[in-house]
């Protein structure tokens, strides 16, 4: 690896000061499972690594009185999957968090890092989007929040300006009679990059869908929020026929490429299959049932 400088600030303000001073040369280090490898292998040009793990606000998990979840950007995945309150309240989010890498990656990798890496296939991102999560950002100009569907701008790039860092992510409380599910297709059973990933969230009103959100991974330059697919379910009966129609809308919105993980045609097919399964799982949870034992 190229020679680098390292800092371990203990406050958001101190981190912002370093990021502001060193500009594009400085990057926040959370679990390092993307950043360290990219600097070493791909020659990513980072001269200053600013370790966020010494900052309390970046390492905290908090379930608010209103039932919302706020997690620091550097919280490692294992702390979320081991947190009974988080697993019980947000099982559809845990679907995604629990499959990011294998055990050793889970020990370090964070959801904040997964989002800031802004890969089109990042598993946590469609799950964050369907939950209506917001990214809480700090920078030299103060604080701001961005909804996660607007965070990624192209592969590896996002809305963070020079000097800014992601502090935390907030998932609003799950409304009554709602459920979420995320799943992906990979050729292994575990520890692989999604060929396609799909997240779904549904809210029921009796036997009908009141609202729904669908987001897709690995079928566009960024994780894709398909508002039209979820909106097509509003007011429709919670039946297989409605689910099939919504999946067709998601398929239409996907614009995948062909690469070593799969052809564009195969990915389009997967979007249909996985959207249906994600919706069925979300529906099951909305009715009080469980998926994956959660």
């Amino acid at each position, binding site marked *: *690896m*190229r*020679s*680098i*400088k*390292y*800092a*371990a*600030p*203990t*406050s958001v303000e*101190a*981190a912002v*000061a*370093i990021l502001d*001073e060193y500009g594009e040369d400085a990057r926040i*280090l959370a*679990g*390092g*499972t993307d950043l*360290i*490898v990219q600097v*070493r*292998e791909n020659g990513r040009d980072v001269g*200053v*690594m600013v*370790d966020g*793990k010494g900052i309390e606000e970046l390492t905290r998990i908090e379930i608010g009185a209103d039932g919302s979840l706020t997690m620091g950007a550097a919280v*490692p995945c*294992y702390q979320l999957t081991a947190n009974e309150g988080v697993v019980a309240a947000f099982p559809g989010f845990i679907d995604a968090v629990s499959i990011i*890498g*294998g*055990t*050793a*990656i889970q*020990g*370090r990798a964070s959801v904040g890092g997964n989002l800031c890496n802004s890969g089109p296939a990042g598993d946590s991102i469609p799950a964050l989007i369907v939950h209506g999560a917001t990214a809480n950002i700090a920078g030299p100009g103060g604080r701001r929040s961005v909804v996660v569907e607007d965070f990624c701008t192209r592969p590896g790039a996002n809305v963070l300006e020079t000097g800014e860092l992601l502090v935390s992510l907030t998932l609003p409380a799950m409304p009554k009679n709602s459920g979420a599910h995320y799943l992906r297709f990979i050729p*292994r*059973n*575990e*520890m692989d990059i999604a060929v396609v990933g799909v997240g779904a969230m549904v809210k029921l009103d009796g036997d009908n869908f009141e609202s729904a959100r669908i987001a897709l991974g690995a079928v566009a330059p960024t994780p894709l929020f398909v508002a039209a697919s979820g909106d097509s379910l509003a007011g429709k009966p919670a039946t297989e026929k409605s689910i099939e129609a919504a999946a067709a809308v998601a398929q239409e919105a996907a614009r995948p490429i062909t690469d070593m993980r799969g052809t564009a045609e195969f990915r389009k097919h997967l979007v249909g299959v996985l959207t249906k399964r994600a919706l069925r799982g979300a529906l099951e949870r909305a009715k009080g049932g469980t998926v994956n034992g959660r």
Partner: protein
Amino acid sequence: MAAELVAGKTVVSTTINGEPLEIVCEPRESLLEVLRDTLHLTGAKEGCNNGNCGACNVILDGRLVNSCCVLAVEVKDGEITTIEGLATAEGLHPVQEAFLEGAALQCGICTPGFIVSTKALLDKNPNPTETEIRYWLAGNLCRCTGYDKIVRAVQAAAKNLSGGN
């Protein structure tokens, strides 16, 4: 208040296999590089050097990690267990015994990583199911054994450690 920037060589206090140490390292060095090249603890192997293969796995503050994906400067005040910390003067660790007894290795490059991962698993879950074992070890790659003997060895170690026979 701005935090201090570490540039060039620095001293990091940490504990490795129960021994408090002061390591001289540069921020660009991974924990794996420092273990192998500075401390000559060459049990952890460099396989892929990008977090896929698990051959460099160590236990850091109670969590299994890929030591290639940790900077040495990050382990300040940390507690690290490497493969060298498992055997004692009395003999091999039960997990090592089980791998040896079950011939759960061929070329051996992946073995230290598998054994450290297995120790971390059994510390947390003394009686894992086969599915739990296979998922836990998904981040350890072996190109020789086909994994079956490894899974059997983990089951045997679990049995031995929990007092069964």
